[in-house]
């Protein structure tokens, strides 16, 4: 967000900046220190010169000062003027009055007022040095015996010092500039030598992430020893620095990833082949079952057909024993047909080959057909059949009517099968708030023990073993019914009390015709 946020700068920039700052600091410190040193040296030289000058003046001015011979004193200071460093010489009397001035352009008019500087010098026991902006002023009292007879002062120019310091400063600045530029270049080179391989690593990582394993070896910086050290025994000597180690670790990682990827791919391929084989096996099994069931149906068709013809007496009436036997023939043939159909359904469900034919249908017409068949089933065992249709059941629903009928018939025939006395009830109704409708089949039969409530929906299961002798059937019916119900987006649930009866509820999604065909209105 903030581009000035130094934490977001590239590594190379940070590195360059910090090296540059360090170099600049070092050069500045060195320059400042040398300047300081130069100035100190020069100042002490200047002081020595001032001291020499003062000693000379003291020597020659003591007598004239004592006599207050102003002319001689003036001569003394004017003679000093020969040196260009010396800006001026001054002599004061015992009261601090200026009596000789080398810088005076005219005859010195005798000063009546004492000069404060002169007074200070006269009172001073030591030499006084004052560093003025462009000069050094040095002065001292002149003592004869015990008497302070005056004071003398000289002024020396600091201009040579300034120019010398300027020279030193300029040299320092030049050196600093060169050093800083060199520093920056060094920093750039260094940071590149670090960031370039890192960038290469980053790029290689991206390529590997993109699945390109072969590109790894072409990363120049990642070839160990390419930039560091000579070849060793014909092999590139691995770089021993951290970047080199990182590169080697990276290559190892890339190799490991490649190996793992290859292994995974092989594994996936093995799985794919196994899966394809399994699917092929399932398909063959399903086709085999379909073919077998076709081959079984054809003769069964004949058995059932001729049994029916004989029972109908088409070729003459049968006597009682004959009729009974043909009836048994017909009934067992019918059971065989149910079994074949169940196996066929199950193989279709397993092969996921069942396609639902969803069309509008009238649930009340379905209920009527179910009632007709349930009445027959109930009558065979002297059971009562009851039917309730809730008024909220829509007149038209959308769904696979044949499959719904198959499920309901299965439940009804089960109810008849497991009930010896009492009744079978068929109820149908809708729950609009759940978007579902229900078919409920209740009986007053043997019931199901609690532990078996889930088992009954498993293939080839009946409560007392598989398959039972007490009750005919394959045990496939409920498994198929529940599979179909779930395929339709619904389910079958069961409640039961042992020796009191069972209630099976089929819940199916409520799809109204109006909802599917809005343009029909």
């Amino acid at each position, binding site marked *: 967000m903030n581009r000035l946020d130094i934490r977001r700068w590239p590594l190379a920039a940070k590195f360059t900046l910090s090296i540059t700052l360090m170099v600049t600091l070092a050069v500045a410190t060195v320059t400042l220190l040398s300047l300081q040193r130069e100035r100190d040296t020069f100042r002490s030289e200047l002081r020595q010169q001032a001291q020499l000058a003062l000693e000379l003046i003291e020597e020659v001015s003591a007598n004239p000062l004592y006599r207050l011979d102003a002319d001689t004193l003036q001569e003394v200071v004017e003679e000093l003027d020969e040196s260009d460093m010396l800006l001026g010489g001054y002599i004061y009397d015992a009261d601090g009055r200026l009596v000789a001035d080398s810088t005076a352009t005219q005859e010195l008019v005798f000063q009546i007022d004492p000069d404060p500087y002169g007074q200070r010098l006269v009172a001073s026991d030591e030499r006084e040095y004052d560093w003025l902006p462009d000069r050094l002023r040095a002065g001292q009292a002149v003592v004869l015996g015990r008497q302070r007879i005056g004071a003398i002062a000289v002024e020396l120019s600091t201009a040579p010092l300034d120019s010398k310091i300027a020279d030193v400063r300029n040299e320092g600045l030049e050196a600093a500039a060169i050093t800083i530029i060199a520093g920056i270049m060094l920093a750039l080179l260094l940071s590149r030598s670090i960031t370039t391989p890192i960038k290469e690593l980053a790029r290689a990582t991206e390529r590997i992430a993109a699945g390109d394993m072969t590109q790894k070896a072409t990363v120049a910086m990642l070839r160990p020893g390419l930039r560091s050290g000579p070849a060793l025994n014909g092999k590139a000597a691995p770089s021993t620095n951290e970047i080199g180690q990182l590169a080697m670790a990276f290559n190892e990682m890339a190799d490991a990833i490649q190996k793992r990827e290859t292994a995974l791919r092989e594994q996936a391929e093995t799985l794919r082949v196994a899966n394809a084989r399994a699917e092929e096996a399932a398909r063959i099994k399903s086709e085999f079952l*379909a073919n077998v*069931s*076709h081959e079984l*149906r*054809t*003769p*069964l*068709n*004949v058995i*059932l*057909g*001729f049994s*029916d*013809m004989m029972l*109908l007496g*088409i070729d003459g009436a049968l006597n009682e024993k004959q009729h009974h036997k043909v009836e048994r023939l017909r009934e067992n043939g019918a059971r065989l*047909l149910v079994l074949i*159909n169940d196996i*066929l359904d199950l193989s*279709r469900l397993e092969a996921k*080959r*069942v*396609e639902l034919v969803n069309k509008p249908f009238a649930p009340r017409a379905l209920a009527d057909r179910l009632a007709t068949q349930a009445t027959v089933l109930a009558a065979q065992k002297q059971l009562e059949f009851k039917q309730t249709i809730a008024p909220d059941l829509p007149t038209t629903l959308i769904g696979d009517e044949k499959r719904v009928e198959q499920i309901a018939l299965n439940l009804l025939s089960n109810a008849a099968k497991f009930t010896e006395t009492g009744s079978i009830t068929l109820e149908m109704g809708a729950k609009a708030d759940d978007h579902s409708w229900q078919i409920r089949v209740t009986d007053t039969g043997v019931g199901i023990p609690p532990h078996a409530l889930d088992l009954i929906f498993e293939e080839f299961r009946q409560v007392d073993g598989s398959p039972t002798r007490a009750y005919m059937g394959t045990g496939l019916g409920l498994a198929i019914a529940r599979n179909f119900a779930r395929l339709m987006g619904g389910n079958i649930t069961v409640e039961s009390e042992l020796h009191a009866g069972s209630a099976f509820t089929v819940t199916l999604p409520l799809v109204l015709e109006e909802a599917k065909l809005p343009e029909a209105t």
Partner: protein
Amino acid sequence: MTLDWDAFKTWSILVVEDEPDNAELIVGTVQFYGATVKSAEHGADALEILKEFTPTLILADLSMPKMDGWIMRARLKDDPRTAHIPVVAISAHAMEGDKEKALSAGFDGYLSKPINIISFVRDLRAAMEEKAALIRPQETGRS
């Protein structure tokens, strides 16, 4: 095509079936309900018989030697003398989609084996009405 189901007794039916037991069963069933019946062993046989015989309805198996039910159905449609005769398929191919395949191939109904003698006429009628119901929406769509 309108069929008078109450007068099934007055109908004449050609049964095309290669398997002798099944042929006898279907012929027997049709006879039981009082209709006149002739039988053919395969499609080519049926075409021969149809030169001199125009039934009310043809009941045909699908897989047969020499000429199967599919080809026969197409041949009958191509001939103006036989194009109007309804043909109902009777097949033991009970796999999903067989019925749809037959109905879209021009059969006027599909019955799966085993046939039920007791409900035969009812089943036959239901099969033909189902096919008719498939056609009707298209017809209304055209008008």
